[in-house]
């Protein structure tokens, strides 16, 4: 086993790890040695081919289909230099004041998160797209919501030179999306942070960790040769994401003193809903996600967003099969899509654990409240599709595959709660949060409000796993803000931690 030494090691390079690396990199000029170990490879520009399956296999854990333990839902998260920011859509929202109040964690204030969010919003070139870059799929959602009197807003997005390829979730082929791989990681490296890709951290001990570098077979080669490494560091920052951070800490034995470790996992369980127009609309040209509606966030606990998916993803998200499914799929140019995100409660029993080999197991039960939200959302979306002029709507919990426009008044009859059965209806999640939640003590949380693990002064968390409850909006900006807090505490305590 080869030996390496740093002062600070960060594990993971996504929204959290990238922000932490940048915010700590200022210490390098004082001689502080900082390393960032990332499981995934750094992709070359030519690797972004826009091919659905090829990119899903390259970029995502289990090709984007990580199953929960009871197999009711799949989870999407990426493994790359840049983490899931390589595949996110780049919608950039600041957490709501009401949400932070609901989090109810003394010491975490909305004003503080807002200030920190502002910094990343500015770094990431967040802005609203011009009207001529809005395609029909997005405009129809906006118009449908407005007709019905539903509140609808344009999404600020973090792009620079967007060509409207619609391929955000396959990795941007035009280097336009401003993920941590484009902004914070290069800045950190410029300041002296050493990034080691294709390097999986297996276990953390007392100021030491074990990692394995393997040839990913794609992207740039790792800075270290393939093999096993023991890495010593005075501070370790875990930013491996809401599934892998708790799993890493659990397999390293931290669960013994931290009963909340892995618990209170939330993920905004999501549905892709589809309406069909009579004539072709522009949907796969242009940025895929320009509008959202939080009209039902308080009353129905769900959010609506525009989206446009690729053929395989679309096919598997429709309930049904056979001739009518095929006919529907055969005209993707007629399809309008809405993504529903349920706002799920943080429950102690929804948790990450590890199997006998130390691999994560996501033990998540969809509550009846979440299923109720998803059910209500189907009827709301059907109304939006019809208000936007759709000829037919596919509701996964529909009594029939397609509900026609002339049947729009009979939604309660055709979309019924008892048809919303797990397995029949495809549910997926990409906003993974919690598992190392912040809080006041080790009985109900894993870290203090600065991301420092209770009782372990040299160990920090800096990613989505810190969330005490769901973000209730697209979370990446808030993840960066939370990681920013962890980095600030490390900087503040540097004299004591690093000597």
């Amino acid at each position, binding site marked *: 086993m080869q030996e390496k030494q740093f002062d600070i090691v960060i594990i993971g390079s996504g929204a959290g790890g990238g922000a932490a690396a940048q915010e700590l990199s200022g210490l390098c000029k004082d001689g502080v040695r900082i390393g960032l170990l990332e499981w995934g490879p750094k992709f070359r520009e030519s690797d972004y081919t826009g091919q659905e399956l090829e990119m899903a296999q390259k970029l995502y854990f289990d090709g984007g289909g990580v199953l929960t333990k009871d197999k009711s839902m799949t989870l999407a998260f990426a493994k790359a230099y840049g983490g899931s920011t390589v595949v996110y859509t780049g919608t950039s929202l600041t957490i709501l004041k009401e949400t932070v109040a609901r989090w109810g964690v003394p010491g975490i204030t909305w004003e503080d998160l807002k200030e920190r969010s502002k910094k990343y919003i500015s770094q990431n070139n967040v802005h609203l797209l011009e009207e001529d870059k809005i395609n029909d799929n997005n405009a129809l959602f906006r118009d449908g919501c407005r007709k019905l009197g539903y509140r609808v807003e344009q999404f600020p997005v973090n792009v620079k030179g967007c060509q409207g390829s619609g391929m955000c979730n396959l990795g941007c082929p035009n280097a336009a999306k401003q993920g941590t791989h484009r902004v914070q990681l290069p800045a950190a490296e410029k300041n002296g942070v050493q990034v080691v890709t294709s390097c999986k951290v297996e276990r953390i001990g007392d100021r030491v960790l074990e990692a394995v570098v393997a040839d990913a077979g794609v992207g740039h080669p790792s800075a270290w040769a393939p093999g096993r490494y023991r890495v010593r560091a005075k501070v370790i920052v875990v930013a491996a994401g809401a599934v892998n951070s708790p799993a890493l800490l659990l397999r390293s034995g931290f669960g013994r003193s931290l009963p909340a470790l892995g618990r209170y996992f939330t993920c905004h369980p999501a549905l892709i809903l589809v309406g069909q127009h009579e004539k072709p609309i522009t949907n796969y040209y242009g940025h895929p996600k320009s509008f959202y509606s939080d009209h039902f966030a308080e009353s129905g606990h769900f959010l609506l967003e525009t989206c446009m998916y690729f053929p395989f993803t679309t096919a598997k998200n429709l309930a049904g099969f056979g001739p009518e499914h095929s006919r529907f*799929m055969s005209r993707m140019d007629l399809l309008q899509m809405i993504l529903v995100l349920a706002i799920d409660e943080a429950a102690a029993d929804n948790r990450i654990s590890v199997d006998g080999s130390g691999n994560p197991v996501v033990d998540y039960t969809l509550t009846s409240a979440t299923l109720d939200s998803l059910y209500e959302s189907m009827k709301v979306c059907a109304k939006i599709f019809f208000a936007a002029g759709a000829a037919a709507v596919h509701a996964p919990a529909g009594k029939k595959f397609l509900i026609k426009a002339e049947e729009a008044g009979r939604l309660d009859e055709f979309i019924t709660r008892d048809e919303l059965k797990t397995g029949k209806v495809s549910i997926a999640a990409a906003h993974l949060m919690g598992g190392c939640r912040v809080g006041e003590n080790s009985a109900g949380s894993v870290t203090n409000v600065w991301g420092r693990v209770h009782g372990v002064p040299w160990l920090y968390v800096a990613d989505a796993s810190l969330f005490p409850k769901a973000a209730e909006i697209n979370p990446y900006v808030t993840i960066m803000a939370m990681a920013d807090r962890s980095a600030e505490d490390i900087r503040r305590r540097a004299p004591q931690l690093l000597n």
Partner: protein
Amino acid sequence: MLSSGERLFLLQAASVIVPEAARLDAGSKEEFLRIIERALETRPVAMQRQFKMLLRLLNLAPVFYYGRTFDTLETQKRREFFSWLQGGPIGLLRKGFWGLKAMVFMGYYGQPEAASTVAYAPSKEGNEKLEKMARV
């Protein structure tokens, strides 16, 4: 890694789930199976085992309804059986069938050539196309 029985079952299931799959030429059928095999290879070993068990179970289960295994049923009965699995009362079977469907859709719609058959023609320069279409 898939046995000949498993390959046969997947092709038979595919022609019910995506009827066009029955008309794929030999090369595309091979590609369909290769995509599924490759996806399975990258999944955890336990999941690979479960998927193979699922295929075996789904081939045998129709015996209880029709007195015959799936591979000997006519298309209409196969469709009925799948409809029952999808909407039926047993959660595990519904989820298992969803897994089968997902693999079949992956093998079929995951082939780059499928895009042209579903009126899907994305471009790296989508905004340019959008602009042209707005002008027409």
